[in-house]
């Protein structure tokens, strides 16, 4: 059972605002999707020891330095920046 509180909690975890007026609708829609997802709980599962879809193991990098990007490039997409830093300016 998905509750309003569940939706508020997962919205907070997801860093999303859900306007009060949308909360009931979203709770209902989440409930429907979860009911759908719940169909898997009718399945008889035998654990096939599934590890990962690639099935690979031990893929490593050697510990060798690769030249970093310049801070200009690193910051080139920043909505705001100052003094070579990404910046979240206080707008209060």
């Amino acid at each position, binding site marked *: 059972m998905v509750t309003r509180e569940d939706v508020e909690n997962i919205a907070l975890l997801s860093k999303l605002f859900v306007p009060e007026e949308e909360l009931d609708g979203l709770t209902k829609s989440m409930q429907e999707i979860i009911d759908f997802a719940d169909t898997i709980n009718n399945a008889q599962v035998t654990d096939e020891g599934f590890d990962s879809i690639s099935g690979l193991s031990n893929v490593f990098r050697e510990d060798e330095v690769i030249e970093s990007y310049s801070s200009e490039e690193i910051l080139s997409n920043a909505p705001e920046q100052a*003094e*070579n830093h*990404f910046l979240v300016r206080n707008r209060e």
Partner: protein
Amino acid sequence: MKYELVAGFETHIELATKTKIFCGCTTEFGGEPNTHCCPVCIGLPGTLPKLNREVVRYAIRAGLAVHGKIADVAKMDRKNYCYPDLAKAYQISQLYAPLIIGGYVELSNGRKIRLHHIHIEEDAGKLIHQHGDTYVDYNRGGVPLIEIVSEPDIRSIDEAKEYVEKLQQVMRYIGISDCKMQEGSMRCDVNISVRPEGSEKFGTRTEIKNMNSITNIAKAMEYEYERQTDLIESGGKVIQETLRYDDATGTTSSMRSKEDAHDYRYFRDPDLVTINVDPQEVEEIKANLPELPADKCRRYIDELLIPEKDAQLLTKYRKISEYFDEACEGVKSAKTVSNFIIGQIFRRTETEADKEIFDVAVSPAQLNELVKLLDSGKIRNNLAKSTLEKMLDSGKGAMEFISESDMGGLDENAMTELCKQAVESNPKAVADYKGGKEKAIKSLVGFVMKNSRGKADAAAAEEKIKEIIG
């Protein structure tokens, strides 16, 4: 009622690999902001991590050094939480299958602080808050860490301090980290609770985050112990929460805010593959581990007959113990070497930082040469001491300060002559000795030593005098 303190530690240690855990950027400390970064470590969309092999090796070294079991299979998980210093909004860490399981740190009181596990993960970037603005620098983002998670086995603040010191010591020995708390390459979260003495049940714990000095750990724990005890005594209840310690006020305060919902939603990172640990590689790493401080200390005490307190001083830093080991090569008494180091050289390396670097003007080989001169009776102790001081001042070898005439003691004739003079000019002492006062012989030996300007061998002189008196 008396209350017992119960504490467990989560210790983060930055690994001294050349590159970050998932990309080729340098881990070098400092540097202009955002200059040790690439698309991977600032989490640009579409980038993928690739695990640094050396991180796994370093973590295995750490695991072996604290008697942990190296897992056959380890996996990487995502720990999801959103914070501006965490570029991807998840930290790649390990929860379900960490690399090292168990282990312990043994304290001087004989208690073993058990470890739950050690896992590898990535560090976050750095935030600077100024006038309400937040500046973000990702140079540290992606630097490899191990997190050493202990069981709640610590029972006092002294044990806590020793636990941290021991971890620091052993991790420095095996060379995986410089463990500088002030620079953040070693950080501790302390879980702390209290319970009535004799009680088996754990109390509700609080977690003090991100402690960056042993002094602060002790102060924060002391404060928290008092706070929790007072709270319970006055009928209150401890709330399980995360705290920060404020150095200025010496108090802890809650970090909780409406904004942090704590549910990390761990799941296997689909971008990284399984680590199958090769047992042969573990054996190789084990074989290449240096002698660990606890083993070294035991060996100094048992085999070299060094007093326990001195043995601890000599093994506190790897550089000192290596210096000592080298200087001891082929000498008769390791204790003599130890005395020179602790008595004289330590005066030149006063701070802990100096001791850790242990950059001494006199090389271990030079000290070894000096001690061997002493061993062979060619020079006397006083001369050795003053020579060492000159060596420390100049960096030159012992032979620069010792002349031929200082060495070799007295020849047989000169010795006999001086002993005869001693007997002749001290009839009272001779009489006393003959009358049964054993000690009287010392003043006769003293005469010989004085008149040979310290070159005579005291034991030989005593023999000779006894022979003359008959």
